[in-house]
Structure formats: C-alpha cells, structure tokens
C-alpha cells in the first residue's frame, strides 16, 4: 500500500535521508524508530507530499506522490509532527473544515467530523477553541483529522507524544482497531510503544535503515535475549557466579545490583542459547535460596542504542568505562 524506493533528501549539503526502501502492506503497523535528527520526520513529510524528494519515489495505493499528488494524498491520513491545527477554530469547526476539503459536503461532512471526534474521544471539548485545549486534546484533534476520511494508509508522526498513560492506551487501542484494514506508519521515541502496537519495527539512523524486522526479531539481537536473571542472598554470589559461568551455554555472568544482603545477577547465554532450564536446574541442585529467577525477552533500548550510537560516542563511553 505504501511503497518507498530509494528515497533521498538533501538539504543543501546536508543529507537528511539517504536511500530508504520500504514497503508497508495492509495489516501492518510499522514503528519508525530513530534518534532525533535521524530523518524520521523528513521521510514522513515526503510520504505525505509536503517535501519533494531529491531522488527516489513514494507511492500510496499505486499513486505516485510526486506526479499524482492529489490522488495519493486522498488515500492517506497524515498527522504532522506536533499535530498542528488552526487554534482559532473549535475542534468541531476544524474537523468540519477538513471533511469539506476532503470532499464531503453537507450532512456527510458533519457525520464524518462527528465520527472522527467520537473515535478520538473529543466530545467534551468540541466547542472550545483549539488554542485553549490541553496538549493531549490537541494531539487527539490531529489524530481525528488524520482518520476522518477512513484512509487506507495512515502516517503519524509521534501520535502519542504529550499524552498521559491513559490517553496513550486509548490511542494505541484506536490504532490496533484500525490496523487490520490499513497500512500504518507511526514514528515514536517510546520503545514500549513498538511492543504495544507495532507488527514491524524499522530503526533508522543518519537517514539509513539500520534494522527492519518484527519487534521479536529485534529483541533477539539484544544481549539480554534469553539471559537469565536471579536474585539470591549476597553471600552466595561468588559461588553462584563461578558455577553459572561453568555451564556450557553461559557466556558470562554479571552483577546487576546488591541491596540489604540480597543480590541480583544476570547470566548471559552464548548466541541466544536457551539456558533457563540449566540455570534453574543448577539452582535447585545446589539448593540456593533463590528469591527470583526469570528469562529475559531482550531489551529494545539496548538494540536501539547499539544500532544508533555513533562510533565516536561509543568510543567515548568505552573510555569512560575503562577509566572507572
């Protein structure tokens, strides 16, 4: 539904996006991740037809965004960064305006505006000027205008930014409810959001895709994937570390924390081997007084940092670590 080929954007001599290829199909929710300035918003602006690419192309439902702009834009719902809206209008007026521009008229326009407001739970503030609304409501006004025409594709730049946990939850539920029928791209800084709503995660850095896969496959790249963490009395730690390290599947054992005579340690596996059974077997065989023992799925933030921390920065961190 959304096809991106060799998408490149240069601002003068600065290259913001360089050669992104992506295909997003119906039923997919693609989480677009990357540090600030990685090119997420620029890519989304090009998909929406706000910026022209330096090279490469985007098509939405078969319509080329550069040459068949209007048809492509009609098939797309777009939430720009910061969810801009006309502050002097009320949500009702604003959504009605969007409906009319989207080609609905009269009763149909009113119905579409009301439907979008209901889906995003805007009813309590429909008659207040948008300028006077809280950040959460403003964001939902932006969401409402994006989904108003029930588009087959949806591109949203940080849809849950500025929302409280309850609002985040309801927006995620809304996205999930629409997911089956649409191709959706959302950008986010929140890694938990990827877990919560995305079927696919793409990490970009310096304008290039550095990872593309299901959230599970990205987690599998984490050092913590299948690692086992145990909590046990601190005096057992030296023995436990030694015995755990001797297990065939274990690569290394590290201290995590130590408080009030209780310590937490993590055993990292060699090449994602499943070591949970060996570790728990060992613990019961040795009769350690284990308070807690669990296998980790992996940590997305770790994968994210590993893929997007640049060499110079990594070097600096390593030096700082060595000095300590």
């Amino acid at each position, binding site marked *: 539904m959304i096809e991106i080929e060799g998408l490149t954007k240069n*601002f003068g001599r600065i290259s913001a996006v360089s050669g992104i290829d992506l295909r997003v199909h119906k039923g997919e929710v693609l989480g677009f991740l990357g540090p600030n300035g990685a090119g997420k918003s620029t890519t989304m*602006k090009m998909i*929406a*037809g*706000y*910026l*022209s690419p330096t090279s490469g192309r985007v098509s939405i439902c078969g319509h080329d965004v550069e040459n068949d*702009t*209007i*048809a492509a*834009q*009609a098939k*797309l719902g*777009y939430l*720009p*960064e*910061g969810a*801009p*809206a*006309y*502050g*002097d*209008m009320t949500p009702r*007026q604003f959504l009605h*305006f*969007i409906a*009319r*521009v*989207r*080609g609905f*008229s009269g009763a149909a326009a009113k119905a579409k505006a009301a439907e979008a407001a209901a889906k995003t739970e805007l009813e309590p503030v429909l008659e207040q000027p948008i300028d006077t609304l809280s950040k959460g409501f403003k964001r939902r006004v932006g969401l409402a*205008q994006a989904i108003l025409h029930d588009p087959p594709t949806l591109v949203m730049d940080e849809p849950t930014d500025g929302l409280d946990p309850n609002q985040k939850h309801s927006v995620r539920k809304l996205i999930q409810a629409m997911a089956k029928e649409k191709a959706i791209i959302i950008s986010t800084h929140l890694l938990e959001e990827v877990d919560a709503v995305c079927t696919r995660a793409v990490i970009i850095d310096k304008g290039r895709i550095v990872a593309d896969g299901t959230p599970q496959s990205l987690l599998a790249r984490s050092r913590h994937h299948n690692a086992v963490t145990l909590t046990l009395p601190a005096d057992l730690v030296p023995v436990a570390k030694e015995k755990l390290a001797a297990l065939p599947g274990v690569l290394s054992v590290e201290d995590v924390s130590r408080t009030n005579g209780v310590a937490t340690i993590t055993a990292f596996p060699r090449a994602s081997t499943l070591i949970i059974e060996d570790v728990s077997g060992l613990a019961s065989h040795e009769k350690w007084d284990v308070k807690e023992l669990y296998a980790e799925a992996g940590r997305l933030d770790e994968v994210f940092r590993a893929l997007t921390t640049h060499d110079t920065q990594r070097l600096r961190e390593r030096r700082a670590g060595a000095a300590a």
Partner: protein
Amino acid sequence: MKQAMAIFKREFAAYFATPLAYVFIVIFLFAMGAFTFYVGRFYENGLADLSVFFGYHPWLYLFLVPAVGMRLWADERRTGTVELLLTLPIPVWATVLGKFLAAWAFCAVALVLTFPIWITVNVLGNPDNGVILASYIGSLLMAGGYLAISAAISATTDNQVIAFVVSVAVCFLFTIAGAALVIDFFQLWAPVVLVNTISSFSFLTHFQAITSGVIDLRDLIFFASLIALFLAVNVVLIDLKKMS
C-alpha cells in the same frame, strides 16, 4: 473549486475570529474619514464628487493591505499548519486562490463600509454616481493588486513582520512606478521601452484614470492581470518551498 470554497470560508472566518478584523476596519474607516475631511478638505472644496476620498486610497492601501495579506502564509508556516494544509488533497492553486479571495473579500467588506460618505455626497449635491461606482470597482481591484503582491511575499517567510515590511516596500514601488522619482532614475540610462513599461505598472496612473471617470478597459485588465500574475508567482513559491 468546492475545496477552494472551503479554504475561502475558513480563511474569511479566521479574520473575524481575532480582533484583527475589527481593529483593521475601524482604523481603515477612521483614516479614510480623517484624510478625506481634514487633510483633503472635502467640505471646503465644495465639489459634489468623491475624487478626494478615492485619491487617498492608494496611500492607505499601501500600509493596510499588506497588513491583511501578511498572515496568509507566514502565520501558517509559523504554526506549522502549512504542513497540514499542503498535505490535504487540494491543488496548490486552489489553496492560493481560496486564501486570496478570502482576504480580498475582507478588504471588500471594509471598502463597502465607507458607504456613509457616498450617502453624504448624495445628500449635499448631485454627484456622478456612475463615476463613483467605477471608482469603487477600481479601488477594489487595486486592493486586489496590493493583496496579491502581499500574499506572494507572505509565502516566502514564516515571519509576519518581514512579510509586512517587504510587501509595503514592493507595493510602494508599484504605486509610484509612474512618478518622477522612479522615471527620472531610469530615464538616465534605460531605453525608452523599458521606461514606458515601468511607468505602465504604476498603480497611481491606472487608478487615477479610473477615478477621473474615464473607464478604460485596459486599466481594469491591468489590475486583473497583475493579480493573476502574482497568484501564479504565489503558487510557484509554494512549490519551490517543497524542493528546498
């Protein structure tokens, strides 16, 4: 066209959503009255026509019309709504046209509200109402010319103050293109054709022709084509911003 209409309605309502519209209209009417009656000595002239009144229009428009046009695009860029507007499925020309027409309609409202002076002159004497009607039409067209220039300049910046100042400067050049100040400068070195072309762009010359009662189609066409030209420039400027 339906979409241009939706843009028009939103823009037009936006003027009245803030105090801007009322401030503008009050100042416009006050200034018109002050210039006509005090500076222009409307009563002392003892003439039953509105030439004094219309004579000040170019100079008032020079400052007031850029104030109407400056927000058209600059404000959208500042608040980020331009991204929303340009990703809606509307051709850029329809957006440009809708915005321009809304601002122009607003100018028309202000102009129509000067009607008491028309009543005054009809009470006091027997003016040529044909000439007055033509002058009103000419005045509206001239306002459209200033506005098209201001809108195009507004599309180049996200700062309304810059949009205003640059618009006033450019509008000033168009206003006095036929005056000695400009012509003398060009006559020293430029070929006659160029000098004539420049002076033919003068708002003052065209507008004075209309208000003197000589209705020449060419003067109307001048303003209409100038509006069309600057709306086209506006569309091109919006498209260029996408490339940057």
